[in-house]
């Protein structure tokens, strides 16, 4: 028996318990390694913990992150007020329109209830003649020209026109001057000039934050036509302001967009 064999026997006697213990640890490590490497096994162990943490996080968001998020949003809105207003304008406009339309419908229903059956029959038969329909069709509003104008400078950004008229850049300047004058004259900074009438033509003005849109119409400009026109304007403006750099877009691309939106529109 060599010296080394003797030492090994001595080691086995002295560290018998430790070797069992080390074996157990090695076994556990193997198990742990297999759990870590096996996605399913690992997931069954970890998922409940993560879910629990997430649930806790959800409930604690308002108290922990709430003030930080609110402060960050406030600063961002303050910094980019114009952009926020510009983005909100078409959405708010549509909401207000829907609300008003709903209220008018309710009012109309109330009036209908007040009218007698005889009154209503008379009104239906009296108005819905073929002759009246033809007259209504002939008198319908037609879009002649659409101008997208910078609100402050009055400079023309883009336009769409059915027929060639006098210089659009000068019209834009004059409209801006008239608009500013009327708005100043009444001292109401938050109110906008909305309509200019001259005999057979009407100019509908829709103000936004940096721009306003002037639509020149011929024919009978009814409330129904106004309603449809506003939908077209809001739709256009929503598309127009979608890109971050919309205020520096070249006129040609906006002209095309205007033509697409207003070109085949029926009011």
């Amino acid at each position, binding site marked *: 028996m060599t010296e080394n064999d003797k030492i090994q026997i001595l080691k086995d006697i002295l560290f018998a318990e430790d070797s069992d213990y080390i074996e157990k640890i090695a076994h556990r490590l193997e198990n742990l390694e297999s759990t870590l490497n096996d996605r399913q096994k690992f997931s069954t162990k970890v998922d409940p913990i993560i879910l629990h943490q997430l649930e806790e996080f959800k409930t604690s968001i308002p108290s922990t992150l709430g003030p930080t998020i609110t402060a960050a949003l406030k600063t961002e809105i303050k910094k980019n007020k114009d952009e926020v207003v510009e983005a909100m304008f078409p959405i708010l406009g549509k909401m207000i329109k829907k609300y008003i339309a709903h209220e008018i419908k309710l009012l109309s229903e109330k009036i209908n209830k007040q009218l007698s059956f005889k009154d209503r029959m008379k009104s239906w038969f009296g108005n819905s003649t073929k002759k009246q329909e033809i007259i209504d069709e002939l008198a319908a509003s037609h879009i002649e020209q659409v101008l997208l104008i910078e609100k402050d400078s*009055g400079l023309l950004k883009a336009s769409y026109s059915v027929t060639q008229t006098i210089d659009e*850049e*000068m019209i834009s300047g004059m409209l801006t001057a008239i608009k500013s*004058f009327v708005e100043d004259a009444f001292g109401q900074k938050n109110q906008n000039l909305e309509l200019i009438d001259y005999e057979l033509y009407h100019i509908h003005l829709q103000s936004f934050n940096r721009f306003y849109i002037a639509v020149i119409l011929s024919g009978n400009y009814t409330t129904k036509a106004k309603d449809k026109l506003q939908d077209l304007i809001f739709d256009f403006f929503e598309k127009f302001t979608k890109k971050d750099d919309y205020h520096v877009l070249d006129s040609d691309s906006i002209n095309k967009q205007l033509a697409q939106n207003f070109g085949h529109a029926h009011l």
Partner: protein
Amino acid sequence: MHISKKIVVLGHFGVGKTSLIRRFVENSFSDNYKVSIGVHIVKKEVELSEEDTVSLILWDLEGTDDISRIRDSYLLGTHGLIYVFDVSRPSTFQTINDDLKKLEKRVKGVPVKVVGNKTDLILLDELKTVLDGKEISYDYLTSAKTGEKVNDLFEQLAKMLALDAEKI
């Protein structure tokens, strides 16, 4: 490249703002004085090169002795100002330095060209002495009647604004 720029032309009553614009846009002059009311807008395209043009949208404001009474909305978004005075009437340039300070506060950073008009009515040497004495500096001395320096004024301004636009 085509760009459009808004230019506001202002000054006291009867200094020849409308006449200056008419000389530049239509190359004409009339002795019949008509008071401008409110604002009149005129456009003139200035060709800087074969490819580059500048549309000057000229806002001809009604004359006023008190510059602070000019509506803010008329000055909004302007790219340049032309302050016109009548070289033959000292009352139209006595308050010029104060007026320019007030304007600078309202339209910060916007270039202002100071123009003494009606040089056909006075000897230039005498005028320069008077203006120097009152420490009034000017950019152009023009005559809408003879057309002297009128085109220079608007064309130089157009060039300057085009250069500014290129820098942006």
